[in-house]
């Protein structure tokens, strides 16, 4: 987080890899490169996770796949005395907006549509830009990654609301709220995007910068 202040001007940085070291990602102990497992905590040591991007993309894809039914299937199944109402996420938000609850509609839209879509976009952007030089500053990309990773768990707020409503409103016969199939897919989508974000190895951001600098030095 400290890097935020001096972002903008790339400084001359020396990565661990260049120093012939590998850092344990769990306990942050640095080991000579080539060490397979952390001598202190036992975590596997990999200087650069070569499969990281593949995992990111694979999980990202699954997350995106899950996001489609999460929006087409109904999220909530509200059963009143004699009528059953099923609403999708967007449909529910639109309905709320119709009733004048713009605030709640906005919250739902932001939490369920804007943030997940932003996450998809951000992860894809990071994964795509990791090997590319120039363009977006690395510090910004790191910030983006941290925001994505931090905000990812808050996407579960939808599932949380559905879970609470389903648990609370179970008045036999009179009214009942049950989660629709979209809730399941939405949860999967959130989980997979979180996993996808975690699968990203942020160290690769700096590799690109390093290659930049290298090129600059030699060139």
């Amino acid at each position, binding site marked *: 987080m400290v890097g935020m202040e001096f972002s903008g001007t790339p400084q001359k940085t020396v990565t661990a890899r260049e120093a012939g070291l590998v850092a344990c990602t769990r306990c942050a102990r640095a*080991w*000579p490169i*080539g*060490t*397979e*497992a952390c*001598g202190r905590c036992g975590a596997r040591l990999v200087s650069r996770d070569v*499969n990281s991007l*593949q*995992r990111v993309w*694979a*999980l990202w*894809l*699954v997350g995106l*796949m*899950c996001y489609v039914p999460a929006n087409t299937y109904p999220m909530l199944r509200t059963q009143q*005395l*004699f*009528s059953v109402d099923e609403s999708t996420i967007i449909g529910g938000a639109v309905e709320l907006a119709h009733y004048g609850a713009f605030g709640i509609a906005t919250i739902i839209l932001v939490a369920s549509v804007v943030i997940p879509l932003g996450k998809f976009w951000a992860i894809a952007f990071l994964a795509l830009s990791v090997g590319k030089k120039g363009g977006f500053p690395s510090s910004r990309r790191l910030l983006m990654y941290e925001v994505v990773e931090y905000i990812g768990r808050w996407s579960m707020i939808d599932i949380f609301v559905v879970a609470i409503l389903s648990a609370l409103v179970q008045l036999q016969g009179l009214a009942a709220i049950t989660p629709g199939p979209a809730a399941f897919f939405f949860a999967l989508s959130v989980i997979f995007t979180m996993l996808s974000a975690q*699968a990203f190895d942020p160290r690769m951001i700096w590799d690109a910068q390093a290659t930049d600098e290298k090129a600059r030095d030699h060139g």
Partner: protein
Amino acid sequence: MVDTPPPVSIKQQSKGRFSGASFIWVIPLLALVVAFGVAWQSYSARGPLIIVSFEDGAGIAAGETKLKYRDIEVGDVEEVSFNEGLTSVEVHIRLKKDVAPYVDESSVFWIVQPEVTAQGISGLSTVLSGVYIEGSWDSEIGGEAETFRGSDVAPLIRPGLDGLQIAFRTTTNGTLTDNTPIVFRGIEVGKIGRAQIARSGAFAIVEGLIYDEHRHLVNSSTRFWDTSGFDVSIGPSGAEINFSSLATLVGGGITFDTFVSGGAPVLDGEVFDVFVDRETARNSLFTTSEVDPLQLSIIFDENVSGLTTGAPVELSGFRIGTVSSLSGIVDFDQFGDSRVRLNVMISIQPARLGLPEEVTADAALSLLQNRVANGLRARLASASLLTGGLKVELVEVPDAPPARLVSDGSALPVLPTTLSQTSDVEATVEGVFTRINNLPIEELLNSFINVMNSAEVLISNTDLQETPGEVRTLLNDLSGLVTSEDVQNIPVALNATLVRIEALVTELEQQRIAETLGRTLAAASDAADAVTSSVEGVPELVAEIQTVAARAASLEFDTLINELTALTSSAEELVSSPETAQLPTALAGALDQLNATLRELREGGAVQNVNQTLASARTAADSIAVSARDLPQVIERLNALFAQAGLTIEGYNQGDELSRAAQAALRDIQEAAGALEKLARTIERNPNSLLLGR
């Protein structure tokens, strides 16, 4: 102090066959497989889309309305649209795959809506959940069909629903209420659908369904009748009101019974007649099989009120049909004027004519044609004198103008008519009633009551019962008196006396007193003696007349009337007295008395006596009248005589007495004469008064 990292074993990363690809890709692949699997599964499980068109889409909503079969969802409405030209609503229904093969061309669809009828409430669940579409199809897989025509009401006979499918036809004058239950001994065993008018317009027809478990109740000798509403019948046992149940009272219904055994089983499609009531239904079983009635038209010149639909048509007193409809008809071409005539349509049941061979309407028509050529005519006749109802009679008119019963196919054959019988009967009855009305019954009764009252009062009066006798004796006396020679000779004697007195007086006047005083005195003495002797009878006469007059005066009929009035009032008192309770017995007694009295009177010859009395009274009165006519002369003469005698015999003291006696006698005679005259006038004026006391 810097820790030197301990030497760690360095292993070269093993390079696998898929060194370039991570194992993680299995997850998206798996997800894809699952997604495709689910998609394929749901696609393959999807049934075909059918299109059902309805007249209107009552409450059908895409995505909400379900298709149900035996109350289980078997499809969803996916889309609601109009057909080309917007004449109907097309509902696209996604069927479930497992029932789809059964939905073939024989399937029917209808919309289930809440319905409140006299039979009950149906489709109540749809009030809150919304309508749904119910489908019905048989249990055999048939050819596929995509478009169907839905009905707005639930069809009575559904494919795959077991039951005896029959049809009902109304008989003449019969009615049908559609969508009503078929009730057997209070149990609903079937139902009829929506009635339709047959193409010929002669009857209504409706399809009916006897539920499968009750189909054995119906066989070929079963008769159905309408129990709609209630019927009131007034018979020898009093008034009766019949209705089977409140539901049929409100909504109508059909019931049936098998009056005789031995009917053949009934197959689907059989047509039954629905009779008007149980009696007709039962009777129809025993008459020869009813065939289509023969419809005829009769045009009556006179428009008579009282003929109604359903009035009997009789042939020589035997009912062969009924009046099916009445209307007016104006046909200038046919009748030559534009008067409204009465057009009566009758339907004749050929089975009632006793046709020898084939019992058909045509045979009946040819028979009637034959009879019409021989003078059979239709006429209106009174069916009931009390209600003024009319009937149509077919009678043979001996010398009727020739006419024919023509049937040209297009219009109904027209039966020729003859003069109706109704007006005569009505006129006669009216005349009789008028004359009865005009009879002064009340006055007659009043008079009779008066007469009876008077008679009773008169007869029950003992005084009165004696009166005839008294009157008789009195009259006898009177007549005896009047007819007595003495009385009749009075005038003569008086005349003679007066003549002699006159002659004496003239002689006295003519002779000189002085000369003939001695003789005169002697003569006067003689004369006086003579006068005395002659007048000797007068006081007796006067006394007699006086008694007569007194008795006549005492015969004041006013008194009698007063007495009678008193008696009447006492009789009234008697009537109003508490003993009136015994009036009947008293009346009977009085009547007995009356009878007895009348018998007595008859036996005693009272009437004859009265008659005789009256006759003699009349003669007596006449005689009195005659005598009375003479009396004034007598009196005048007496007056004149006394005036002269008074002057002449003034000096005689003896004469005073005589003259006073004579004057008194003469006054009495005068009074008697006046009384007699009065009596005579009264009797002359009203001879009955003597008897009736008035």
